[in-house]
């Protein structure tokens, strides 16, 4: 059993038993937030990490799914219809978003997505008849999947955990699939992929759709958690925040976005209670990550760990040689 599998198993057990060892309802709630933010980050990572396409407007798509849920519920539709509408609406918006943004790559893609995100934000403010403007939409009550109430912290946590694990598994499968490999190919060598006969645009488009699905799921969970949606949730700083989560944790890795999401949420929600200048702290952490582990927290830690092992191993073998040398 490799160290990696053990670590993953421990993590899984910890997550499943979390409500029992977390000191209080508040921290269970923070964990729920980390989980759906991680789904959001995983969604962005498909594009940014595995596809090399950094999107600075993803919060807009997140918001569309959240607003769709809110709007449907506000108008008396049931939860299943609301969720379905949000998923379909989110993915349809993503399709449009992808068609527009995929006309460019690199910085051009970043700029187009930024513009789209800002436009969606503007719509959230001005289309008052649908979004309520900055008064937002207030939700009352949460869905009851299979008749189970998820109004308490614990039950909401477990629901989110189940969704998270399914999403994580889906991403893991995607990454190891031919489509995932093709996507990484287009990230690294788009021209060569093209020459080899791959339809680069289509690969990217389907990656966008998968990303959009995950983002929509995260948006729906968000609106059920906070029971409120307003334009602040999809402004530029929100988009920047999820990008930071992915990059800080490690773009292009499975666990990176999760760690990144945990980092940002913990600093924002927990550390901010102890340290007044938490914004500066967060910025300093990002700078430190860039200096020490520019590839991200997860790959960086793995690298440093291996380095430490290798050093220890080299030292041990030197010791052994010395002993053997003096012995003979």
């Amino acid at each position, binding site marked *: 059993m490799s160290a990696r599998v053990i670590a993953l198993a421990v993590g899984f057990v910890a997550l499943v038993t979390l409500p029992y060892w977390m000191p209080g309802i508040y921290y269970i709630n923070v964990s729920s937030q980390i989980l759906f933010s991680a789904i959001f980050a995983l969604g962005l990572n498909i594009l*940014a990490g595995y596809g090399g396409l*950094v999107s600075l407007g993803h919060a807009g798509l997140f918001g569309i799914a959240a607003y769709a849920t809110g709007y449907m519920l506000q108008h008396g539709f049931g939860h299943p219809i609301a969720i379905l509408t949000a998923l379909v609406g989110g993915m349809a918006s993503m399709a449009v978003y992808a068609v*527009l943004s995929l*006309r*460019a790559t*690199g*910085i*051009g893609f*970043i*700029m*187009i997505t*930024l*513009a*789209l995100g*800002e*436009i969606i*934000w*503007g*719509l959230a*403010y*001005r289309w008052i008849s649908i979004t309520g403007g900055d008064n937002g939409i207030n939700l009352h009550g949460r869905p009851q999947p299979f008749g189970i109430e998820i109004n308490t912290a614990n039950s909401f946590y477990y629901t989110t955990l189940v969704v998270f694990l399914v999403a994580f598994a889906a991403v893991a499968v995607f990454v190891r699939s031919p489509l995932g490999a093709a996507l990484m190919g287009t990230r690294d060598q788009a021209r060569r992929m093209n020459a080899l006969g791959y339809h680069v645009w289509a690969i990217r488009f389907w990656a966008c759709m998968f990303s959009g699905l995950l983002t929509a799921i995260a948006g729906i969970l968000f609106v059920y958690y906070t029971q409120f949606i307003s334009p602040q949730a999809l402004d*530029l*700083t929100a988009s*920047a925040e999820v*990008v*930071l989560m992915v*990059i*800080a944790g490690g*773009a292009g890795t499975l666990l990176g976005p999760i760690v990144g999401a945990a980092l940002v949420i913990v600093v924002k929600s927990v550390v901010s209670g102890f340290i007044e*200048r938490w*914004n*500066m702290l*967060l*910025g*300093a*952490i*990002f*700078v430190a*990550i*860039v*200096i020490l582990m*520019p*590839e991200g927290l997860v790959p960086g830690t793995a690298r440093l760990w291996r380095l430490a092992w290798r050093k220890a191993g080299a030292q041990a073998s030197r010791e052994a040689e010395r002993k053997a040398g003096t012995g003979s």
Partner: protein
Amino acid sequence: MTFWLLLTVNSITFGGLLFLLAAGFSLIFGLMRIPNLTHGSLFMLGAYFGATFVGGYLSLTFNFWLAVLMATVLVAAFGAVIERFLLRQLPGQPMAQVLVTLGISFIVADFCLMVWGGDPVRVDTPESLTGFLRYGPMVFPHYRLAVIAIAAAAALGLWLLLDRTRLGAMIRAGVDDPDMARVVGIRVSQLFTIVFALGAGLAAFAGIIGAPILSVYPGLDQDMLPLALVVVILGGSGSLLGSFVGSIVIGFIYNFGQALLPELSYFVLFLPMLVVLLVRPQGLFGRFVP
């Protein structure tokens, strides 16, 4: 009639201010291919520094223009430090560049809040430029007209730098083909530090020049950065002419768009930006596709 004339002149003024803000960004992006997301905070930092010098620091008040110079130099030095110690380690790693520039902008913004507090800071218009120009029923403040002159002078100065000096030639070579430039013997990394410092200094300069009009307040960085991005996208990256034309165009769109199309006021800048990106991604005069 007053309305049209006023807005036309203000479009050019606001465009001038945007040029000062965007030129630095365009240079950095053009030469180093780094989207400097710290640019808005450098603008704000320059404005705060300038405001402190003008308003009195250690019981010394400085002449407005001297304060402008001091603020510009301070922030340029800060920019050089950022480039030398942080950005230099990350060539060709856009993710890390985004992370570090955003991280620095968080730090700078919170630093400003910590030092100067949450209240807005007023910067008085310099004595020599208070007063208005009256043309019939239209009134236009002298200072805003001065901004046009300052922006034009800066544009001229930058053009002379880029077109007529050796440094400028090296910069242009670096923008067009960094690898070849290295092969030819240009010390590209030293150039990077100089250009980043220049860009940062320009942002700070814009900040303090704009302060008598915009005042200085927390959140100024987030209000101004998107404008810089829009200008650079429209005008084209790495091109001085592009920044100049782009900023005037955006100045017009900003003023007339908001006044005539209030329903679309939120989209008046980003829709054109989107259209340009879709139709002509390198912008009007860009030297490369971003």
